[in-house]
């Protein structure tokens, strides 16, 4: 017996499921949004399935792909994933429905730059970026630019750490930006492997910085690993996800003296995408589109900002003044790394050249 198709039941309700993964705050977000949505749409029942972050994130994608291959219903309607998932889905099985303003009206409100990677297959409903987090009490000369940052690292040996880029985005963002800061502006959008030859300048820099890192070259595992170092005072400055840092500051887990700042050129960041998996069921497709549309409303977007400490998915100008204000610290924006597979090549090379140094 395969997993139950979410058929419309006798009462005429359509059941759809949302699969999401990530940190706890993502889970809390959905647990708040879904009841609100269901209240407004009585005919739709949403089942929410949360996959905590860790090694298992891969599994939902694999599941959809496997279902597609065997012609089964994956049971997943909406899937929250990353840019790589979109690309993988497209390459390996065309498993997602195309999404345009035609079926999801509010897509029109979405920030243009975020739409670029979506390939008309996803809704970038929120975003976050990596920023610099530092201890105000210890760091007096806060760097404004990347070069100042590199200089600061050299001036303060052992007081900076970024996490192993194979284990978390804030570390990989540091690595990516450091490498691509040495290349021309548009390089982040190149997916051609030839660019790998030009990475060496960046890697030389990373290697040059390595001895000045925490414990002369220790890169903790996971995003939280570096945050712990900062919280414990073992280092004074780290790259961190804006939402994570904000949330933990807010919960009092990071002391007041921890401040965030975006530098120039910015670290990478990016939207979180919602995809619509193709299960061949029209009713569920429509219900799912309804939900995707709902996520882009102002109400929900405010929850994104207030509870998830995420950047909104819709255009800044659609927000209230007050909300725009909140993000001035970090809204120096972010860059999106659009290199596709090159991302994993980059961290692999990091593993070989920097870690193994």
């Amino acid at each position, binding site marked *: 017996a395969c997993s139950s198709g979410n058929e419309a039941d006798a009462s005429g309700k359509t059941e759809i499921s949302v699969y999401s993964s990530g*940190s706890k705050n993502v889970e809390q977000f959905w647990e708040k949004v879904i009841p609100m949505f269901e209240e407004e749409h009585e005919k739709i029942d949403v089942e929410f399935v949360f996959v*905590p*972050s860790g*090694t298992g994130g891969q*599994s939902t994608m694999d599941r959809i792909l496997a279902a597609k291959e*065997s012609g089964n219903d994956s049971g997943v309607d909406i899937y929250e994933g990353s840019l790589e998932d979109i690309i993988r889905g497209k390459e390996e099985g065309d498993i997602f429905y195309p999404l345009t303003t035609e079926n999801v009206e509010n897509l029109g409100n979405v920030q243009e730059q975020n739409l670029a990677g979506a390939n008309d297959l996803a809704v970038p409903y929120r975003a976050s970026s990596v920023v610099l987090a530092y201890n105000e009490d210890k760091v007096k000369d806060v760097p404004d630019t990347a070069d100042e940052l590199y200089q600061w690292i050299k001036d303060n040996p052992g007081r900076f750490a970024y996490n192993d880029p194979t284990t978390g985005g804030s570390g990989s963002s540091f690595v990516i930006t450091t490498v691509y800061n040495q290349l021309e502006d548009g390089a982040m959008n190149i997916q051609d492997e030839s660019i790998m030859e030009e990475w060496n300048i960046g890697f030389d820099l990373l290697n040059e910085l390595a001895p000045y890192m925490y414990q002369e070259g220790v890169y903790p595992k996971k995003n*939280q690993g570096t945050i712990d170092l900062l919280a414990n005072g073992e280092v004074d400055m780290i790259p961190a996800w804006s939402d994570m840092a904000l949330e*933990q500051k807010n919960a009092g887990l990071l002391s007041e003296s921890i401040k965030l700042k975006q530098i120039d050129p910015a670290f990478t960041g990016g939207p979180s995408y919602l995809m619509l998996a193709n299960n061949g069921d029209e009713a569920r497709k429509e219900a799912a589109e309804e939900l995707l549309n709902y996520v882009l409303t102002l109400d929900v977007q405010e929850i994104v900002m207030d509870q998830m400490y995420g950047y909104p998915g819709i255009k800044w100008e659609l927000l209230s003044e007050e909300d725009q204000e909140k993000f001035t610290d970090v809204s120096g924006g972010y860059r999106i790394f659009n290199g596709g597979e090159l991302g994993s090549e980059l961290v692999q090379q990091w593993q070989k050249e920097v870690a193994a140094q």
Partner: protein
Amino acid sequence: MWYFRTLGERKIIEFIFLCIFMLFFFGPLLNLLLLAFAGEWQYPDVLPKVWSLEWWSFVLQDESIVKSMWLSFLIATIVTLISLIICIPAAYAFARIQFPLRRFFLFSFLLTNAFPKMGLYVAIAVLFYQMNLMNTFTGIILIHIINTLMFMTWIPSAAFENVHKSQEEAARDAGASPLRVFWHITLPMAKPGIIVASIFTFLSSLNEAEGTFLVGVPNYQTMPVIMYSIIADYPSTAGAVFSVILTLPTLILLFAARRFVGADAFASGFKMK
């Protein structure tokens, strides 16, 4: 005189060793225990400044966590029962019956330990996708059973072997059929070994994280799975509370079963004939 002096010296050395032993093995655990009750404990304070139960209430209020505890125990119970049913006959066969390739079968269970767990889980996941076992209860049970096969066959097998043949024969003599003999004589006498194996099975199922993560997520989140995400997302105090909660049942079980967890029942399982 000389004698007493050396006695004293030896006592002191012994005591020092005990301290090192305790510190090494239980220091990290004690640290967690303190952390779990700490309100504010900033570097470089040696002890928490403020004590608090804040994270306890946070953790215990979270429904998914309480649910995961139930789930863990349910899974562990079922896994233990099933592997008992599957493995005890095999254990008995290894101990008492001569059949072809007996040794091959016996040692094949070593394979569960010889292939890297991660690699095995990944390969199993591929299989589970094909069999539609991903994210099912059955899938989780199966992946837990893999870990217990060896314990559950080897230890009871040694226990059966230690039941003296003449005790079985005396029961045959008394008029009991072979099946009765097994039920009334052999099985109860092998009980300590079987209990040890069951406890290990139960605990290993209770603590299994990696495999569950791979095949059970998202619908089946056991305690250790939650623990992974807690460690990733929360500060040490919350993690410590989880740790204490997660460790407690194991320790209670250990002490409850203290009587049975003798070195011998366990060790004899690994000396094969």
